[in-house]
């Protein structure tokens, strides 16, 4: 069983994760109301506090931990990894 979650251009295979109290999981911002955003996690929507982000826009994906978004998920960031793996 795996649900697929699109992280802005990158598909993540959302296999069965497990019982971690503090697992940070990715969600999509549907709506912003001041410091709170409605974030969608594979069909479950909840309110998330976005005051720890310097900016956030509707449609962006964020990593959420213990009720707070801690960072945005950026697509296709270029790093030295690709070269190093060759």
């Amino acid at each position: 069983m795996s649900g697929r979650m699109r992280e802005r251009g990158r598909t993540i295979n959302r296999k069965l994760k497990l019982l971690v109290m503090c697992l940070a999981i990715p969600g999509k911002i549907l709506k912003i109301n001041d410091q709170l955003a409605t974030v969608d996690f594979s069909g479950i929507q909840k309110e998330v506090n976005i005051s720890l982000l310097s900016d956030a826009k509707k449609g962006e994906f964020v990593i959420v931990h213990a009720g707070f978004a801690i960072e945005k998920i950026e697509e296709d960031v270029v790093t030295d990894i690709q070269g190093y793996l060759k």
Partner: protein
Amino acid sequence: MMKNIIEKINKLAEEIGRNINLMEVCGTHTQVISRYGIREILPKNIKLITGPGCPVCVTAQRDIDAIVNLALAGVPMATYGDALRVPGFFGSLNEAREKGAQVFDVYSVTEAVELQKKIPDLVFFGLGFETTTPMTAWGIQQGLTVYSAHKVFLPAMAALLQDKNINIDGFIDPGHVSVVIGTAPYDKLKIPQVITGFEMEDVLTGILLLLKQIKNKDTRVLNQYSRVVKESGNEKIQKIISDVFEIGDGEWRGFGVIPKSGLKIRKKYASFDAKVKYKNILDKVDFSHSKDPAGCRCGEVIRGLMESKKCPLFGKVCTPDNPVGPCMVSVEGACNVAYRYSK
């Protein structure tokens, strides 16, 4: 894709030849590695050791005893789930609740802030590293009173490297701590490192990158989790943390005091610091018993010096149902993970 990575890992391990110790230091990685059975498919000379990545596990017995005493003295306490079950010398928070103390299990600091509207004396027990510290800092800025056992993670990694009882060849750095602090702080450790995500492919790629560095005698901090971890980290979070907290000594289970590893609430927020507000209760507590329970080897497990299964209490006296130490309490603890995934 995975097969390719595993083949490359096998090839590198053979080329390196000698025994290699890689350490993961993140509670979530601990779980993911056991859950996916990653250790079972690694070549025999590559050992994956669990380090002090579990925030509940590394919380000093003294801090547990302090908050349990506050609870028993009538101070309403709120904290994250697993922390309620850690058995201190005076019992756990859950046991304090059974004796009539007001103890609340919250999933988020926002719940604690809401709760405080109904219970003005509420104290939030803040524990964990840079991933959970910002939420606590935000809470304090909203007027929440906090007992801080928060820690800065890097000094513990440096302490591990100083420990002559263990030889670490590379670290899988903690994913979400890195989201906050960025990649630069790890450079000073001068050892191969990789920051990875939490999918199976992420972790395997991370191991591959470490082995490549080891073979090439390279010591870099490679960021495989770049979709979330920025080089400079999350600067807004860093500002919020430094507005509320300052660095002091930190007491860790297993390590004892590590200088410059603890986060104390700054004087300007002293009225929200439970250690100041309830100094009269805390001063009366006898902390001389605040050490690991008799026979408990969590201190060694946390530092990667002992495998969970080798602890004489593991699975017999100490189980998730009847835990002796925090490594068995927390779902991110090495012993709890080992127990749940043992066949």
